[in-house]
């Protein structure tokens, strides 16, 4: 088709077909209303979508934050609930860089915690039991139910909670686990001592398994275990520090009777009142027992009264000057 032919066809076009003007105007209004409604709907959808994205972002951010916090806490709370620090305690994440430890220090498994000559710690474990770390003791937490005793002494008191979980103290000479008790583990170079005040403790020294009970003490060296001994907890060196690390005991408002009952329980002594029980209730005391051994506490308190005491074969005998 050439230009002229196209021109001839175009000349056949008489008039353009148009919709009815009135109907077209009605259609314009209808389509415009539809368009505007659709814009609003899309705007709402965009707003909802934006809000959903924003909410999701906030949630993801919060989750990440929570996980980070939780991750930080994993270094802390799963192993123990809280720690009381007495004196200066150092901890090492890098063996060459010991740092002072505070109750807020977040420890990781493998960190070494070292007490000095005059400092100690009380760990409040997640099961509610209590683990005391003696002066000059070096430990490493493995997890909430296992600790490595590198050197020194630990006192584990599970009597404070009936639901204590099995806890393992590990040394290079063996592992010590308890079945609800109060016991002390002393680990020195080439010697592991375990003394039980109440309950029962089992020791596995890689070759043999030993079970010791109330007032029994076992010593294990690289050459093997020595015979089990009977010990008296109130003045044995293994136990004396555990009393010193007790919470301060206020005597104010207490009677001599109250004090004697308290210390006899702590030192595992049987009281022989010799008829003075009622009189002792009328003797008022003042002051605080803090950082003392059992003997030091008894001496200090009885010195302020007209009463005497004597310890013989696990019995605390009370007497008066007149007598």
């Amino acid at each position, binding site marked *: 088709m050439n230009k002229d*032919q196209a021109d001839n066809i*175009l000349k056949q076009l*008489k*008039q353009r*077909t148009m919709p009815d003007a009135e109907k*077209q105007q009605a259609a314009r209004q209808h*389509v415009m209303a539809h*368009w505007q409604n*659709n814009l609003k709907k899309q705007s709402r959808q965009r707003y909802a979508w934006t809000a959903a994205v924003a909410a999701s972002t906030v949630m993801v951010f919060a989750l990440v934050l929570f996980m980070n916090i939780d991750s930080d806490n994993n270094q802390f709370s799963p192993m123990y609930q809280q720690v009381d620090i007495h004196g200066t305690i150092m901890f090492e994440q890098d063996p060459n860089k010991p740092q002072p430890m505070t109750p807020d220090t977040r420890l990781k498994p493998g960190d070494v915690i070292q007490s000095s000559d005059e400092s100690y710690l009380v760990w409040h474990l997640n099961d509610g039991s209590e683990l005391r770390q003696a002066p000059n003791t070096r430990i490493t937490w493995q997890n909430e139910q296992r600790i490595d005793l590198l050197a020194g002494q630990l006192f584990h008191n599970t009597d404070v909670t009936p639901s204590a979980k099995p806890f393992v103290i590990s040394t290079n000479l063996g592992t010590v686990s308890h079945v609800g008790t109060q016991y002390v583990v002393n680990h020195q170079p080439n010697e592991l001592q375990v003394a039980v005040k109440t309950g029962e403790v089992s020791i596995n020294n890689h070759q043999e398994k030993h079970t010791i009970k109330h007032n029994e003490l076992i010593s294990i060296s690289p050459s093997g275990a020595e015979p089990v001994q009977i010990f008296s907890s109130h003045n044995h060196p293994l136990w004396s520090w555990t009393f010193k690390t007790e919470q301060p005991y206020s005597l104010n408002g207490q009677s001599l009777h109250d004090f004697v009952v308290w210390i006899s329980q702590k030192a595992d002594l049987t009281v022989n009142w010799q008829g003075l029980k009622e009189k002792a209730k009328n003797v008022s005391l003042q002051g605080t027992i803090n950082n003392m051994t059992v003997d030091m506490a008894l001496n200090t308190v009885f010195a302020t009264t007209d009463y005497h005491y004597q310890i013989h074969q696990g019995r605390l005998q009370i007497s008066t000057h007149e007598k």
Partner: protein
Amino acid sequence: MGRHKQDKQLVKQLLKGQTQAFNTFFDSYHSKLFRFILGRVDGDHDLAMDLAQETLCKALDNLQDYRAEAALFTWMCQIARSFIYAHFSKQNRRRRHVVPMAEHPSIREVLLNVADGGQTQPELQMHNQELQQLIEEVLDHLPNNYGDLLTWKYVDELSVEEMAQKANTTMIAIQSALARARQSFQQAFTALLKTDSLDHLYPSNWEYEYE
């Protein structure tokens, strides 16, 4: 200018909610869609109006899906086709539109006769309406509003000066555009005489140019 850039720009403005863009959109496409549909619904004006309206609404609902791979009008014609098909399917009626018209031997004869400047034979008068629709459809599908330009020239019989004034451009630009519009129409009709279907007449890759 890039392909369908003006269409893309119009769509962008519509998505932003610009009323001016809506007016341009409606004024540009409602009548064209009406004519496109009218030729396919056996001249039923009311139905063509309804379907044109539905097509525009549907197009506005789906503007975000327009990728400018075809002209906006071609894209809307596709929507219109689906509405027409759905309508006749619903009515359980056979389609009665003029798509196969170009295949019709008599129409082909009319076109050739007209093209050669011959008088329309009385026996071919019955096809005048179809011929009108065919020319209009080709005009509506021409790019760059060439259809409007040719309408002003051949139907409204406007002078070049009047057309320039109406298009807010120069007389030289209008003369140039008019020449391109004729050429475009000539190419479309040449293709029409060689093809079996109108669907092949409006390639999606037509370059759109603007003064």
